[in-house]
């Protein structure tokens, strides 16, 4: 019985998120895991790491192994970014102002790994653990709040947070993803335990999380959440578990990155394999795939996209609310476990604002969607209107379950009032927390972009 009692003790009380919104999208994936043919190209994309200035370490044509450093952060030279596969460094894709967008690797048929040395985290000092993560290129998997950027390895975080479920539209089932990776996940947690003086907080869904990897995880404090999206967002969980005050630094990771870290210590290699879900209304056979991070998505989407009605598909690495738009032959983002494909909304629509068509979804009750809670939607990317100033009030709070005044905070960022941003809690938020307010906004204000600008301003101010 002692095991049972400790389990009960470990279960803190359920946190019920009441405000939020589940957007019912078509194209949910079947729980089938497939391994697609190995992609010819993989890429690491510096824009995945906000604020990074990459400096290249390899020359075109160089041979690389899985774990070979490709570039480093100009302002934090110890943070290197390594190749997820072995092959040949083929090309650099640059964007406006010669910004590096993609570092492309032509993959070998089989991976050859750099040996970083297996180790039990318990036998290493904190500094040795940090060095191992830095060298292997796994450090960027750890991000921090405030600012929602790659963590500074010189900080000691107050706590580390991991969300064991996702609530975003069409999110992958993390129980399914972690299946078979239980020991690596626990090993990853043991590594992270070395890094903080505080706790590792693991947020699980009080009903949907069933995997023992999460429920019986050691070295963590378990928190049970329930409620609509954004209950699974790390920012919401931090706010309800132990909010960030000015001066606090907390770190957070994705479940699959914890697994990758675990494998680094178990096997001594950077094994970047992960499970991604390919879904959305435009996918013929939405399902799960085992791939290597940075994979070229055409390996999954080839002949798997609906083309019958002539709508252009939009490929998104991540979810429809905060993911990154990528081309049809683009690459999976570093932190992502999901590729969503939805139709572009690039066709004009006669009196589209007036006619209450059944295929429209709205939180307002001016369309019929509120009467059909069971219906799933094939939503497109049409923005619906030009941008307007704030007019409607009180709707943003309904989808942001934090003690934060969303409209007031956004306005303080718009007028660049740093003092007010601080007072209104900018340290607690990240762009993704404002994805739902942005979605519901009838004035079509780009809130995620504004929050990012605010965080950049604050970060610059205190650097």
């Amino acid at each position, binding site marked *: 019985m002692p095991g049972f009692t400790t389990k009960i003790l470990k279960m803190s009380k359920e946190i019920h998120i009441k405000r939020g919104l589940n957007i019912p999208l078509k194209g949910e994936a079947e729980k089938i895991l497939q391994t697609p043919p190995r992609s010819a190209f993989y890429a690491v994309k510096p824009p995945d790491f906000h604020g990074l200035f990459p400096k290249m370490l390899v020359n075109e044509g160089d041979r690389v192994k899985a774990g070979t450093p490709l570039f480093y952060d100009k302002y934090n030279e110890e943070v290197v970014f390594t190749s997820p596969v072995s092959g040949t460094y083929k090309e650099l894709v640059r964007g406006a102002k010669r910004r590096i967008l993609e570092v492309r690797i032509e993959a070998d048929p089989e991976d050859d790994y750099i040996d970083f040395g297996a180790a039990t985290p318990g036998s290493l000092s904190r500094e040795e653990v940090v060095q191992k993560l830095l060298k292997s290129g796994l450090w960027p998997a750890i991000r921090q709040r405030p600012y929602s950027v790659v963590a500074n390895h010189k900080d000691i975080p107050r706590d580390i947070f991991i969300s064991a479920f996702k609530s975003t539209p069409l999110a992958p089932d993390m129980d399914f993803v972690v299946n078979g990776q239980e020991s690596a996940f626990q090993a990853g947690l043991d590594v992270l335990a070395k890094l903080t003086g505080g706790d590792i907080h693991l947020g699980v869904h009080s009903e949907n999380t069933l995997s023992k990897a999460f429920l019986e995880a050691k070295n963590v404090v378990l928190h049970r959440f329930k409620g609509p999206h954004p209950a699974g967002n790390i920012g919401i969980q931090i706010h309800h578990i132990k909010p960030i*005050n000015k001066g606090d630094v907390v770190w957070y990771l994705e479940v699959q990155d914890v697994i990758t870290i675990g494998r680094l210590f178990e096997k001594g290699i950077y094994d970047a394999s992960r499970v991604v879900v390919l879904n959305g209304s435009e996918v013929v056979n939405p399902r799960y795939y085992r791939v290597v991070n940075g994979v070229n998505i055409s390996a999954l989407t080839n002949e798997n996209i609906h083309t019958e009605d002539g709508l252009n598909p*939009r490929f998104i690495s991540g979810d429809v609310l905060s993911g990154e738009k990528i081309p049809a032959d683009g690459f999976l983002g570093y932190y992502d476990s999901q590729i969503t494909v939805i139709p572009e909304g690039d066709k004009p629509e006669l009196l589209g604002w007036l006619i209450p068509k059944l295929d429209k979804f709205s939180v307002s009750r001016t369309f019929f969607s509120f009467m059909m809670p069971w219906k799933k939607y094939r939503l497109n990317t*049409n923005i619906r209107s030009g941008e307007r*100033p704030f007019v409607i009030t*009180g709707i943003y709070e309904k989808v942001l379950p934090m003690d934060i005044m969303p409209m007031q905070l956004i306005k303080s960022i718009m007028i660049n009032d740093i003092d007010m941003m601080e*007072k209104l809690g900018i340290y607690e938020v990240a762009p993704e927390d404002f994805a739902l307010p942005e979605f519901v906004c009838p004035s*079509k204000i780009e809130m*995620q972009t504004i929050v990012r600008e605010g965080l950049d301003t604050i970060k610059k101010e205190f650097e």
Partner: protein
Amino acid sequence: MKALHNILDKVRPHFEKGGRFQKLYRTFEAFETFLFVKGDVTTRGSHIRDAMDMKRTMFHVIIALTPVLLFGMWNVGLQHYRAMGEEAAFLDQFLFGLIKVLPLVVVSYASGLIVEFIFATIRDHEVNEGFLVSGMLIPLIIPVTTPLWMVAVATVFAVIIGKEVFGGTGMNILNPALLARAFLFFAYPAYLSGEENPAGNFVWTQASVDQAVDTYSGATPLAEAATATTLGDVSASQMLESMPSALEMFLGTIPGSVGETSTLLILLGALILVATGVGSLRIMLSVVAGGLFTGIIFNLFAVNVFMEMPVYYHLIMGGFAFGTVYMATDPVSASQTGTGKYIYGFLIGVVTLLIRVVNPAFPEGMMLAILFMNVFAPLIDHYVVEANIKRRMKRLKAVEQTA
């Protein structure tokens, strides 16, 4: 649809930079986006967006206003034929009202939209939809006898001074429609208050005072109550007898501003606004609560006959219902915080009754109460926001103390 869009595509170059009518681009764009939701797609942030937009929001307020507009037209005819002592069929009454009210609507929209289009062009932004509602509200809150040129002047004043000088829709402090009414009220008081206007007409009824039957007073219930109070030698029951019955006031077959009289249809409008989520139920209920609270206090003291009047009369008299449902709920000029809305609404109710009953200068208090609270809304919000900030500071201090 395709053909229509092709026409737009064909004429668009004339309005774009270098085209013959490039100055009219914003006007063209306003009509284009009215006809078509453009094929513009998201480039940053959330890839999908809620189907709701400003046009649809404003459109729903217009829908909610339609019952009171139609009733108002009929009531204008009804009051006219009553004043003239003539029998008239329902349709005649409605047509009379239609002919009188429609010009008010047209003038209000035309004058306001012209200003909006000019400012959109000067500032080079899209034409905002806010005036679609203001333009409909203005004719509904003024007497049908208001000269058209006054409506135009007031509307232009309200849009420029009330809205555009602050930066346009979303930035204004005062409710533009109420500002238009206040402008008329103070600039041309003879046309907006009392019983007979300088043109020899009733103020509230489209009929010449000389030609009307003697039994028709043309006074609004509020004016009757105010008169009874100042006379001082009538009892409360006598005062109530001089007024239309409560049922009449609830149904709206009484003299008054075009859209304000029918509490029943305003309730229908409220239902539409609340059911669609466009109007704030929180504000509506708070205004009513504030009104009832003050009315009950008056009843307890009952120093004069007006204070003795049953409380619910206040809700069905004058512009109380209309202001509560359509004006106090204007999201831009109202309090913008959840808690703030309760305080804002409640105080509107309180101030309205104070003006009505205690202040002898103005028989009606709704307009001034809302404008007054519009001015105070940012202050209320300031304290609500401060409370949020203080909670965060307290949390920080608590952590520092344990550390």
